[in-house]
């Protein structure tokens, strides 16, 4: 078989992908060393496995399965509540370590980062491979968590590399080495290739990433639109996606979803959950000075099917009080009395800058300005005493009937001082002493 050479130069550029290994449980293991190596899952408050440690994975526990199933598989399973504050703290420190090696770091998700190392060899007096190794070692040494690192010449290939050996792996794919790594890789494992694309590729006889990369340009142009063509080029070592350091500040939509336990049919409680999600989404919208023109609300049934509805506002508003009637009417439309629900969600759409407000002739602008001032105060209170310190009566049942978290609160929640918010508590290290 003749070998295709995709790139003659080994390092036209160097892109690093850092991927946390079972990130949430690994963070828990770092904070609670006594749990290290034990079958461990997080997601206790949601009733499903949010993240399973490698020990648990070996016993067959997978992400997304209900906890009772996971426990049946693995009787000694340790279930922890998700401690997102701790995870984001680890995440921030991990990105900080990557930034020591290059300023061009893209925080792709809570446990993933891309970094462009091109041209950094001279600065660090070492090869790209050595830099990658040092990133990995420093994260391990300082944070006590293991990450898998992939180094290659495009983002898609770097991602292929970091996935190649997990956990705690370091895989380097230089330009010349591309075919070797793509040969055995099923095409649906490539970043950006979903089940639909994979199914389509199979119909034209493509099963592995290498077969995809080897397709002639003509064929690719005929069969694929922009995203497909871009992945094809990236796989061939031609960098299309830049490592973007921009922080996200422009939102097309904002959504908030929360699963609660136990599942319920109670409309008051359900609406309270829904309204709370809407309030949370609006807090975020206000933080970015945005207001939605449209909203989607949805309810998730216990069998995981959705039912949703959409409504438009007369003018953009990021103030739940102004639209609670609309939301209640929408809820009444999508709520079915006999069903049992496990989650609710709200999505804000058509976000526009919340200034130059054009009030309506048919409303009372004085009242609207009052609402605006009220929420300004609510946001100040929220900053001082915690989100939702001031909330609508409609979402109050949550405070009375519980937030729907099950299991033990996290160590971080238990050690919070009275009056301290989760955000403030972030700055404090958690000292965990086992007696």
């Amino acid at each position, binding site marked *: 078989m003749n070998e295709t050479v995709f790139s003659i130069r080994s390092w036209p550029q160097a892109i690093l992908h850092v991927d946390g290994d079972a990130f949430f449980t690994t963070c828990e293991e770092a904070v609670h060393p006594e749990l290290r190596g034990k079958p461990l899952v997080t997601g206790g408050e949601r009733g499903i496995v949010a993240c399973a440690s490698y020990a648990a994975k070996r016993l067959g526990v997978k992400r997304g399965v209900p906890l009772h199933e996971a426990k049946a598989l693995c009787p000694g399973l340790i279930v922890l509540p998700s401690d997102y504050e701790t995870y984001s703290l680890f995440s921030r420190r991990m990105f900080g370590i990557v930034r020591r090696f290059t300023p061009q770091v893209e925080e792709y998700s809570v446990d993933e980062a891309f970094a462009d190392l091109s041209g950094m060899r001279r600065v660090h007096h070492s090869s790209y491979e050595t830099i990658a190794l040092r990133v990995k070692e420093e994260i391990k040494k300082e944070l006590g968590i293991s990450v898998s690192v992939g180094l290659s010449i495009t983002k898609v290939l770097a991602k292929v590399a970091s996935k190649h050996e997990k956990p705690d792996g370091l895989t380097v794919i230089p330009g010349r080495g591309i075919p070797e790594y793509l040969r055995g890789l099923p095409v649906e494992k490539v970043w950006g290739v979903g089940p639909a694309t994979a199914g389509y590729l199979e119909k034209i006889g493509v099963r592995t990433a290498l077969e995809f990369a080897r397709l002639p340009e003509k064929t690719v142009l005929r069969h694929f639109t922009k995203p497909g063509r871009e992945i094809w080029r990236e796989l061939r070592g031609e960098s299309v996606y830049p490592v973007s350091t921009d922080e996200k500040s422009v939102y097309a939509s904002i959504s908030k979803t929360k699963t609660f336990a136990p599942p319920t049919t109670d409309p008051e409680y359900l609406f309270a959950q829904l309204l709370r999600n809407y309030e949370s989404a609006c807090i975020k919208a206000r933080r970015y000075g945005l207001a939605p023109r449209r909203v989607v609300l949805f309810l998730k049934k216990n069998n995981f099917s959705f039912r949703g509805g959409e409504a*438009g506002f*007369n*003018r953009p508003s990021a103030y739940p009080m102004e639209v609670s009637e609309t939301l209640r009417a929408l809820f009444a439309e999508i709520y079915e009395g006999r069903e049992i629900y496990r989650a609710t969600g709200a999505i804000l759409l058509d976000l526009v*800058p919340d*200034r*130059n*407000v*054009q*009030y*309506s*002739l*048919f409303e009372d*602008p*004085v009242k609207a*300005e009052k609402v605006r001032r009220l929420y300004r105060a609510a946001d100040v209170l929220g900053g001082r005493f915690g989100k939702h310190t001031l909330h609508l009566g409609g979402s109050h049942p949550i405070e009375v009937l519980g937030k729907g978290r099950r299991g033990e609160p996290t160590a971080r929640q238990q050690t919070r001082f009275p009056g301290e918010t989760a955000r403030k508590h972030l700055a404090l290290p958690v000292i965990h002493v086992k007696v």
Partner: protein
Amino acid sequence: MEFNVDREILLDGIQKTLGIVDRKTTMPILNNVLLRADDRGLDIVATNREIGLIARYDAQVVTKGEITLSARKLFEMIREIQEKVVHFKMNDANWVNVSCGKVSYRIPGISADEYPKVEEGEGLMFVNMKSSVLGDMISKSAFAMSTDEIRTNLNGIFFEVVEEEDGKRKFRMVATDGSRMSLVDKDTGGQELLSFGKGIIIPRRGVSEVRRLLDEGDEDVAVGVDRGMLVMKKKDTVLKVSLIDADFPDYRRVIDSIEKGTAVTLNREEFLHALRRMAVMANDKYNGVRIKVTGGKMHLDSTNPDVGEANEELDVPSLETELDVVYNVRYLIDAVDVVDDENVVFEIREGIKPGTVSPAHGENHLSIIMPLCV
């Protein structure tokens, strides 16, 4: 069916249907117009089930009959034909030959039996109104209609009869998109005889067809309302428009709540041009014009970080008050543009209170604009 028709007449007749026939429809027949040849001439009928049009034209009918054909294709064909007279002939299988000199087209039609019925509103009470006056009312209110599909009750012009204090009746049109409103009262004739009850809402698409009908010649138009339909007859044309079945918002409450403000009388042309100069800076994101009155001068300023700044000063010597209000510049332009007088009275209110624009003399025509809150 066989007939001869003058090309000009036919072209004009088909063109009038193009705004009505649906391009995006699930029923292909609604792309078509109905051609009906009988003793009285040629009827061209178009409908999208909300708006219906029946127009009669002179034609030399050889044999009677009816068929529906694609309006768009007919228009394209006739437009390119150069001769004076067009000949139509239908065979048994609903195929139609359209010929003219050495040109001939052969196109398939759909049977007229499948076309939705458009009735002429027989037995309805009609009153005559002056076309030009009615058309003027539409021009002065239509701009304020909402384009937001969600708010159906604002997607049209509200039309009603009002009684003034001296017992005189007038027709009134009101349109609003929620943030601005325009209202005009007029004597079009017929207001003594016709009543719209609690008022009717003519939908946006209907408004443009009505306007087209009113613009054709000076003849009076006969107007009648029946079961949610507005029927208008003029010469040999009948236009039917389905009214919006919703309640128009309580516009009187808005009018009643307007307080006395600071009135500035400005030359319409000058003010309009000044506003248009400000609008150069406006886009979808920034559309405000700040109006600041101080020391007998009115400062206009429009700032858009993406484009730049515009400043202008108008003399208003009589004004001693200090004011500072921001409006959507396009709303102001629309309102000033339709004023039918040399001078406009612009009444400003401080705070989040609506501003008003009206002619200095003459008719009862009022535009109300809510300011922007910056």
